[in-house]
């Protein structure tokens, strides 16, 4: 369809942290401080035990939350609130059930494209990109989970964001659908290079997708390890080098899981 457009922007995260304060005045540090630089068009995957602040990080990047300290720059500009330049793909799809498939993809195009006809054409072309052109007028509730997530991916790419934030997008899907969608996502991303921050708790998924993997510690989430993967895509995650990397990530992850377990045994701070 279109020529590859590299319009991803650089993401700079500096000393970012988030502390929640409960009503009784107790504080809980969920994240940070975290500093990362993500290159324009880079595919960053963040892995960590549950409750490590991965989702907090993503919500800060999306602008759903205000950081307690630190800053986030996208293309050198500080972010203010949620914006269409940082499209989000949610684990629960978050499609609008009162709209048809194509209307869901059109939803974000209102701002830039006043013409309804142009919006429909763009939406159709992105549906074609995820192979759902024949489902344009179906209701969202008629789709399977994997198809819903493809619509959500089309919706996110359609607004031509500089960044794509993906919050465990394939976490609710069965293993085979998940495999299929990982491939589709890579194909689309290679065609239209956006900067991607992808959250997952699957190490294999991270190895398959990432340019770079970040491993986070348990609460408060900090960066524990970093791996750059140069292997050409599509990757064979059973290759010696990736298996070795997997083993290394798991050994560090296991340390964190043990700590999480110990934390949970203590009385909860909230």
């Amino acid at each position, binding site marked *: 369809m279109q020529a590859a457009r590299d319009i991803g922007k650089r993401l700079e995260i500096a000393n970012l942290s988030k502390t929640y304060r409960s009503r009784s005045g107790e504080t809980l540090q969920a994240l940070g401080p975290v500093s990362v630089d993500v290159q324009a068009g880079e595919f960053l995957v963040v892995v960590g035990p549950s409750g490590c602040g991965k989702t907090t990080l993503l919500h800060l990047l999306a602008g759903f939350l205000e950081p307690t300290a630190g800053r986030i720059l996208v293309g050198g500009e500080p972010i203010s609130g*949620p914006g269409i330049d940082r499209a989000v793909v949610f684990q629960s799809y*978050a499609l609008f059930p009162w709209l048809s498939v194509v209307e869901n993809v059109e939803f974000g195009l209102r701002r830039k494209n006043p013409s309804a006809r142009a919006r429909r054409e763009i939406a159709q072309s992105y549906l074609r990109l995820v192979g759902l052109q024949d489902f344009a007028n179906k209701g969202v509730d008629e789709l399977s989970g994997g198809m819903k997530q493809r619509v959500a991916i089309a919706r996110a790419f359609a607004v031509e964001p500089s960044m794509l934030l993906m919050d465990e997008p394939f976490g609710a899907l069965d293993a085979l659908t998940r495999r299929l969608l990982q491939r589709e996502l890579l194909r689309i991303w290679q065609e239209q290079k956006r900067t991607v921050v992808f959250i997952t708790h699957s190490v294999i998924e991270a190895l398959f997708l990432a340019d770079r993997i970040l491993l986070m510690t348990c609460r408060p989430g900090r960066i524990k390890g970093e791996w750059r993967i140069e292997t050409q895509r599509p990757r064979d995650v059973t290759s010696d080098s990736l298996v070795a990397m997997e083993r290394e990530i798991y050994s560090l992850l296991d340390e964190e899981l043990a700590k999480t377990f110990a934390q949970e045994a203590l009385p909860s701070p909230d």
Partner: protein
Amino acid sequence: MSAARTIASSARRTLPFFFAAACIAVVWQLVVWVTHPDPSVLPTPRAVVVEFGHLVTNGELAADTAHSLARVFAAWLLSALVAVPLGLVMGSSQALDRVINPFVELLRPISPLAWIPLAILWFGIGELGKVFVVFIGSFFPILLNTIAGVKGVDPTLLNAGRVFGCDTRFTLFRRVVIPASMPAVVVGLRVAFGTGWAAIIAAELVAAQSGLGFLIANGMDVLRADEVVVGMIAIGVLGFLFDTFFRYLQGRFGHAS
């Protein structure tokens, strides 16, 4: 094949209702046979069928039904026009909710029937008083369901709306909150029609010259129990049909969320 299945499944759904109706008729007939009541106290099913035919052919039943329905529709629409916007606003503004909610909670327990005397004093026995009573009866179900609908909107959908271009509270409200709460609003409208239907009959029993409630009250005054029962059956069947119709709408437009 699929047509046969449709017929079979609709028969499966409607059959229990016919069974229930037949049971009521049988028990009723048995009571008549055993106790030989005076027809002015309890008519035979047969007398009711005859009276039903009579009221249909002379047009009285149709006229009374039309009057009752017109009142309910007018009042129900009016209360929807007030309660839906108010509920949408109360559901999304905590400050407004805190101010208005006490009024709602104080007025809500007062049955619409308790308003009938005041309605008569204020508006006489004309149409306005009856519309007022039904308005009270249908207002709160719509309001409360709408508020619950707005408060129950999935926060992830709100986030998705904010990401994909709703950058003011108003656009988010218009493009996400309102459509997302529609299923709850439809539930409110359905429940409200039922409560409104009950209220109009009560209002017409007390003060009216037409309507199904009037038909019943009149039947009592002239000791015509058969007329009373015809009115009761009409009320039950119509209420049931409208509820079924609204459930159908709910299925069509009440997307699962």
